């Protein structure tokens, strides 16, 4: 029998891991195309605020998620313009995007602080959710949770088994060779950034619509940066990212479980867990995994002119 602590921890890990996984998949696609995006935090914030405000206005969380995805994609194209077209430094551009997202989301979200929504509906899976013991724990999630694992498999398939994925990875490894082979590296990179922005937007929307069901300034609290660490942990591989997101979701869920049980440990110390876990994971695996990184990650393809 599953004790209620472990049940809570497991279902909490799945819940908290879901937005991390969406964000990580997005970052993995960008980095496979040779671009590091530290602005993911800002993209997630924009997704969170647009998803929330749209849901308040329309009363429909599905419209909110859609709006969040589009906003994330378009917002990420600002970053794309800087690093692809203007060939600006990727780290500084990413941080600038983060600042922009922090400020803009605060501005958009100000009237919605304190608004209440029903949020994303729980989707019960017939039969499974009625199972004794596990049913109530594992089959009462919102639709975005159920979709994220199939999506990871889809991203893996697209990256490794389609023509587009091959071109994208070629651009990330060696843009000059891809260019010589008649591909347009910039076009593929823009496409990758738009898709990654959409995933970041969905990640933010899941935070505000399903987890918190409210909007607060800077509510992502560094999850965008944790996702960047997760990409390294998962060796730029969408399927390994599933395990990574569960582990990090577990760190967040553990802290929530401890607080819910009134364990006399300061919540602030427990809140440190996900960040410390990210660091520990980077320190143990990060150095050894550098060889797995796309070869042209962070470099600028200057074209042939």
């Amino acid at each position, binding site marked *: 029998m599953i004790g209620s602590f472990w049940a809570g921890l497991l279902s909490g890990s799945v819940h908290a891991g879901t937005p991390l996984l969406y964000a990580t998949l997005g970052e993995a696609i960008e980095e496979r195309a040779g671009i590091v995006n530290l602005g993911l935090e800002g993209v997630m914030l924009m997704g969170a605020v647009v998803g929330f405000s749209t849901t308040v206005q329309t009363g429909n969380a599905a419209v909110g998620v859609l709006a969040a995805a589009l906003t994330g994609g378009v917002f990420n194209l600002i970053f794309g313009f800087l690093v692809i077209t*203007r060939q600006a430094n990727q780290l500084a551009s990413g941080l600038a995007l983060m600042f922009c997202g922090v400020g803009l989301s605060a501005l958009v979200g100000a009237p919605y602080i304190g608004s209440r929504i029903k949020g994303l509906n729980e989707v019960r899976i017939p039969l499974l959710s009625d199972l004794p013991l596990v049913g109530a724990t594992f089959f009462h999630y919102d639709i975005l949770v159920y979709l994220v694992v199939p999506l990871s498999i889809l991203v893996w398939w697209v990256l490794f088994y389609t023509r587009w994925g091959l071109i994208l990875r070629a651009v990330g490894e060696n843009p000059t060779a891809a260019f010589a082979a008649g591909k347009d590296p910039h076009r593929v990179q823009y496409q990758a950034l738009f898709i990654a922005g959409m995933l970041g937007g969905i990640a933010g929307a899941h935070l505000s619509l399903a987890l918190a069901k409210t909007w607060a300034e800077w509510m992502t609290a560094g999850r965008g940066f944790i996702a960047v*660490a997760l990409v390294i942990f998962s060796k730029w591989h969408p399927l390994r990212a599933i395990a990574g997101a569960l582990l990090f979701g577990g760190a967040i869920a553990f802290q929530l479980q401890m607080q819910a049980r009134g364990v006399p440990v300061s919540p602030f110390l427990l809140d440190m867990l996900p960040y410390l876990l990210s660091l520990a994971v980077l*320190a143990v695996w990060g150095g050894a995994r550098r060889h797995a990184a796309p070869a042209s990650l962070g470099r600028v393809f200057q074209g042939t002119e």
Partner: protein
Amino acid sequence: MGRIRELVRGLRTSRNGGMSGFFRFVGLFGLAFGVFAVVLLIFGKNPLKAYADIFSSTLGSAYGFSEVLVKMIPLILTAVAVAVPSRIWLINVGGEGQLYVGALFATWGALTCSNLPAWILLPWMFLLGFIGGGLWASISGVLRAKGWASETISTLLLNYVAILLVNFFVFGPWKDSESANYPQTAAFVHAAILPAFGGTRLHLGFAFAFLALILFHFVLSRTRWGLEIRAIGGNAEAARRNGIPTTRYIVLLMFIGGGVAGLAGMSEVSGIQGQLRPSLSPGYGFAGFLISWMAGGNPLGIAAAAFLLAIIASGGDILQMAHGLPGSVVNILMALILFVVLARRGWKVGGK
């Protein structure tokens, strides 16, 4: 690699270009301010009134001007914290966390040694603040020197841990029992407060900031240390083969950078707040990164960019109070300024 060198070169060409370079510079910033005006318009605010208020509340009065100088202190210090390690291409995005830990250490000094006279207590807090920020940044330095984790991501993550650490102490062991529900430490004794000039809030930390800028410039250009640092910055592999201990410099420069950011935290608690509170910094550490980046690590450029961002940061207060906008709205203006700087061609970068 040549990011900062390119940037400095970019600045120089614009200076040599005389008036046209100057106008291009003004035009770039005008573009950022223009876009921000449109954003304000969209959200139903009068941008002309907002800019007029920002101007009159900062440069329009002696007190307003002194407040700009007050904001320059943490901005310059956190910018130097980025500029020092950037000399050997280390990217320190952890100024915010280092500031918090510096404030934490300095507060510990103020609370435990409150019977010391000011002339011992203040230097002791100064030292503690430096060590606190320095140790915090050294974690990332060691991780990098060992090849375990990039300092960019580790400094970013440690920001959050540092802020939580301050929250832990302020809500927990150090919470002032007198101040009912407010999460804050007991007020510092008079001896732990940095003296201020005249009737303003402009405190001695201003001297720290300019001393840090001058030392930064002097050490790099005039000492053996500076020569070795420039050698590593020029070609790390060649420097290593010539017997310069590059890994030791990685940790050392991260320590010094973090220490300077820690001073920003010390001067905030000791010069402004007079106690430790969770809302210590509205993001000075991140703004410091932008300042250093925009200035290309050049000391004069840092002072100028810090002045500009201090005006914007003070403007944030007025936008919050008089226009009912969230205080973090000024982040948009900062980001827009950085966007135009980044988008300028000719500053493109070859490598990471």
